[in-house]
């Protein structure tokens, strides 16, 4: 019966989502906006001076400086957007996961949640359909962002040999992060009574999570305390793992493969932990008071 309840609720949410394109468009423009804005305004290679105290490097020298800069600080990405794409996708995942809970708060406010609670359905189906519908919605945005990054001039350049397995690895990484984050925000959405409270908490939580990670900036130059936070931040793990695959394709060295494996193991542990905690919190929130 859990499966029947889960599919019924998830189907309802996805039908509503598909029939309301206005709900999808902001996510699309958010992806475009972040890639174009951050891809240009934060691009460190555009800040390389053409005059070093009277010395004017040649175009070839400037190109070498650019390559060295990206190699040393930006995971050897061929372009800045190649470095940035994984982080922007994580940013989009986290923000949309947070605000995706609004539908659940609305369900509570308009009485639909109580209709569910008075029906003989499994409480787990309410929680997990909330988690999965959010993931499905957000993954489509992640895919759109990936495509936009590929199309943009000086955009995402995938590593040679990047194949279907690497693609699945990249999106598998995003799914792991999305599942964990979705469990947190779904439990939160089922626990709060108003949209205002949800938005306040989401804003409060997501900004530090994003900016205290390697999603948008490399670790080099960060203060030590921020490095410590960044090191345990699951967004850093997902950004690093996805970025590694995007930039290097199927040509990972054993060191890189090891780093990738550790990041994924960390994400799996994080996701399992927050799934259990999220479910327990949701069950408490849905229990008769």
């Amino acid at each position: 019966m859990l499966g029947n309840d889960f599919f019924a609720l998830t189907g309802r949410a996805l039908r509503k989502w598909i029939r309301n394109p206005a709900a999808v468009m902001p996510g699309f423009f958010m992806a475009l906006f972040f890639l174009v804005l951050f891809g240009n305004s934060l691009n460190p290679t555009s800040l390389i001076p053409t005059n070093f105290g009277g010395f004017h490097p040649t175009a070839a020298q400037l190109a070498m400086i650019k390559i060295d800069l990206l190699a040393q600080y930006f995971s050897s990405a061929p372009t800045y957007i190649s470095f940035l794409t994984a982080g922007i996708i994580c940013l989009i995942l986290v923000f949309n996961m947070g605000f995706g809970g609004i539908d659940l708060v609305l369900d509570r406010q308009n009485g639909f949640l109580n209709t569910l609670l008075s029906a003989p359905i499994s409480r787990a189906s309410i929680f997990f359909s909330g988690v999965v519908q959010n993931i499905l919605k957000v993954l489509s945005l992640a895919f759109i962002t990936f495509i936009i990054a590929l199309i943009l001039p000086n955009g995402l350049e995938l590593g040679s040999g990047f194949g279907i397995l690497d693609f699945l690895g990249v999106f598998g990484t995003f799914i792991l992060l999305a599942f964990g984050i979705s469990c947190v925000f779904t439990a939160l959405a089922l626990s709060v009574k108003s949209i205002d409270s949800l938005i306040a908490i989401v804003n409060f939580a997501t900004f530090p999570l994003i900016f205290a990670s390697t999603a948008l900036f490399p670790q080099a130059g960060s203060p030590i305390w921020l490095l410590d936070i960044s090191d345990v931040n699951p967004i850093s793990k997902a950004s690093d793992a996805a970025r590694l695959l995007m930039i290097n394709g199927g040509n990972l060295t054993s060191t890189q493969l090891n780093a990738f494996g550790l990041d994924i193991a960390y994400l799996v542990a994080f996701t399992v932990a927050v799934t259990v905690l999220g479910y327990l919190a949701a069950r408490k929130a849905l229990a008769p008071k």
Partner: protein
Amino acid sequence: MSNIVEAEGLTKLYGEKVTAVDNISFTVKDGEVFGFLGPNGAGKSTTIKMLTTLASITSGKASVAGFDVVKDPSAVRRSIGIVPQELTADDELKGTENLVLAARLHHVSGSEIRAKSKEMLKLFDLEDASERRVRTYSGGMRRRLQMAMGLVHSPKILFLDEPTLGLDIQTRTKVWQYIHLLNKEHGLTVFMTTHYLEEADGLCDRIAIIDHGIIKVSDTPSRLKEQFGGEVLTLTISGDEDLTDFLRTVPDVGDVTLVGRVFKLKVTKTENALPVIIEGVTRRGLKVTDISSSRPKLDDVFLEVTGRSMRGGEGGGESWVQNMNMGRSTS
């Protein structure tokens, strides 16, 4: 006739200070329409929340369709249908899709879902609108769809919370007809709250009036009116003077209530009381500008029992769903 709902010493405390429902006991018989009436905050919504497993019980016990609401909530949920005051049908889904969803969530078997949905659409005259999205429905159509969703799984008892609140008189009459039809022809037990006393009077086999968490009276509408006894004399008197004390001294006059400038008197013998009243009013230099006498109505019973007019609460109808949502401690 067996009892489909049994409540014994049912109590609900919110925190340590707020007693929403105070040790109430009542039964609902299988196949009857039971009306639960009370002013806002009386405890009726909290009672329904407890019976439908949406709220925990502080003390006492209750069973619905033979199942204990605390020990076997899943069995209770399988046996009940709920039509909340809110319109919870999904605007973006079609009428049929909402019904199919409700059926699936109540575990109606796959082969039966379509047939049951069609049956409900036909019963509630929604066949023509079944493929339209609910956002295009009128208020009356939404209410009918809501009732269909509460019934699609063939529950043993249907809980209706203010089923006609905010509806125009034609739609309200139509909803009454549906409730009557479901009860008389389909044998469905209905447990309803309403702010419209004429609705309770016309539809309910038995009613209970709850106030301050306590059931004040419970009986058939006709017996309650009989118990009220005598007649209701309604007087409009010129001026602003409060004549309540004087009217209470008049022979054969029982309770006196003042609503605006209208005095309502419970009178055992109008022919004895009326000359004394007119003489007393005239002596005070006032005039009786309007006078009428009627058999007691449920409204009069309600007023006597609660000391409040139900009309005062109209339009501010509470809802157990809303209360649950807001996490308020009122009922």
